[in-house]
C-alpha cells in the first residue's frame, strides 16, 4: 500500500493528544509557528500539558491562547517573555505555570540528542551560571562543561513549507528554526505545510527533514497569522 501520511484536517492531525502530554512546538518569534495545529490541541481539550518551545507566545492566539487557557502546566523554553507575552506573564506571576529555562543552543541540542539516541552530552554553555545549578559539571582538557540530558516529547507540532506523501519536508527561510530537531525528537511528529507536492518532486539533495521523522502531514492553505 502506498505510504500516505497526509491527513484531511487539523483534528485528524492532532488526534490522540491526551492529558499530561509533552508537546514540542516549532517556531522562533512569529516565524515557523504551527498556529493551526496549536489551535487543534486547544480544541482537543487536552490539559496538564508540558510545552517545549523557544518562546511562550504573544498576543491572544496560538501558543498564547493555549497557555492562556490554563491547560499548560509547565513550559521548557529559552525566552518566554517578549513584547506581548502577557498571557504567559500573568500565569507565571500567579505561579500557575512551571518554567524550565534552558539556553537556546542547549534547548535545540537536547532535542537533537533525543532524536539521535544520545543519552547525554557535555556543553560549555551555562558553566558558572545559575542555569547550571544542580547539574553535573565535568572538566575535559582543562575546561568545564555541564552535562545536559535529552529532551523528548509525545507530540511535535511543526510548521514546514512543503511536504510529500512520505512526509519529506522542506522549510522556508528562517521559519526552519526548530522544526527539524523537533521532528526527530517526538514519538508523533505532526506537520502543517502550505503545499503538498507529488512524491519525487522534491530535490533529494535539498530535503531538510527526511520522511522517516514525520508521521502526519496536514495541508493548511493560509496559516493563521497575527501581529505580535
Amino acid at each position: 500500500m502506498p505510504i500516505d501520511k497526509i491527513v484531511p484536517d487539523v483534528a485528524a492531525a492532532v488526534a490522540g493528544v491526551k492529558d499530561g502530554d509533552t508537546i514540542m512546538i516549532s517556531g522562533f518569534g512569529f516565524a515557523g509557528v504551527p498556529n493551526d495545529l496549536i489551535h487543534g490541541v486547544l480544541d482537543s481539550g487536552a490539559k496538564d500539558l508540558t510545552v517545549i518551545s523557544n518562546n511562550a507566545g504573544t498576543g491572544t492566539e496560538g501558543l498564547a491562547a493555549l497557555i492562556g487557557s490554563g491547560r499548560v502546566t509547565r513550559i521548557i523554553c529559552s525566552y518566554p517573555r517578549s513584547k506581548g507575552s502577557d498571557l504567559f506573564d500573568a500565569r507565571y506571576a500567579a505561579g500557575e505555570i512551571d518554567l524550565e529555562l534552558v539556553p537556546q543552543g542547549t534547548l535545540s541540542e537536547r532535542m537533537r540528542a533525543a532524536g539521535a539516541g544520545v543519552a547525554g552530552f557535555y556543553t560549555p554553555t551555562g558553566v558558572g551560571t545559575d542555569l547550571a545549578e544542580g547539574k553535573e559539571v565535568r572538566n575535559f582538557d582543562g575546561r568545564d562543561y555541564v552535562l545536559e540530558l535529552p529532551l523528548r516529547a509525545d507530540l511535535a507540532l511543526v510548521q514546514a513549507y512543503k511536504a510529500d506523501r512520505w512526509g519529506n519536508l522542506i522549510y522556508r527561510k528562517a521559519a526552519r528554526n526548530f522544526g527539524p530537531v523537533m521532528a526527530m525528537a517526538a514519538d508523533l511528529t505532526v506537520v502543517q505545510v502550505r503545499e503538498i507536492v507529488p512524491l519525487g518532486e522534491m530535490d533529494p539533495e535539498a530535503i531538510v527533514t527526511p520522511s522517516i521523522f514525520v508521521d502526519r502531514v496536514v495541508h493548511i492553505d493560509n496559516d493563521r497569522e497575527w501581529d505580535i
Partner: protein
Amino acid sequence: MSSAVSSAGTATESGAGFTKLTRLQIARRAAEMIPDGSFVNLGIGIPTLAANVMPEGKEIVLHSENGILGVGPGPAEADRDRDLINASKEYVTLRPGGSFFVHSDAFAMIRGGHLDLALLGAFQVAGNGDLANWTTGDRRFPPGVGGAMDLAAGAKGIWVLTDHVTKKGEPKIVNACSLPLTAPGVVKRIFTDIAVIDVTEGGLVVREMVPGLTLEQLQTMTEPPLTLAEDWRELVVA
C-alpha cells in the same frame, strides 16, 4: 565446538530429505515478512540481496547508513553512478521520495530508534538474542566494524539473515557467542537457509522449517533448545 555439533553438521551435509534455501531465497523470505510502510536498513551480505526482491504491493523505504533513504534496486551497468552506492559499496538507485543526508544524520536515524527494522548478517546468534557479526577474531587481519554496532544497538527490530550452520557444519545459533559481541540481546528473528526462528523471552521458537526438515533434525544443528510454534508453517519461497 563439540564433536556432537560437528556430527550434526555432517548430518545436514549428507542431505536428510530437505533442500536448503539459496541466499537470495533467504533474503526474499525476510523481505516478504517486512510490514508494509516500514523503514528498513539492509546490512552487508545476504540482507543486501533483499533490495532486489522487495515484495510487490508494499511500500518499504530502504535506508543506507552512508546517507540515503529510499534506496532502489541496482542500476543497469550503463546507469551506474560513482556517487550513488549503498553501505555495501554496490551501485544502487534512488526511488522517488528518496533523500540524501550527512552520515551523522544517517546514524541519528539509526541510534535514535527511527528505523523499524535492520536486517543483518551474523557469525553467531545466541539464544538470548546476543549478536556477533563484526569480527571472527582472526588476528591476522585487521578488524572492521562499520555500522554493525550502531544498527544492532539502535534499530527497533533486528532480524538476522544467515546460513543455519557454518561451512564446517557448526551451529551459528549457539548457547553463548564465542566470538566478540556486536550487541547483547538484540536479535528478534532469525532467517536461515532452513528455518525461521523467533527469539522470545521464553526461548527460541521455530516459526517455519523447509519441507522435509523435522524439529529433531533442526535441533541437532542448533545449540539452544527449540520449541515449535503452534502455527508453524513450511518455509517455502518462490
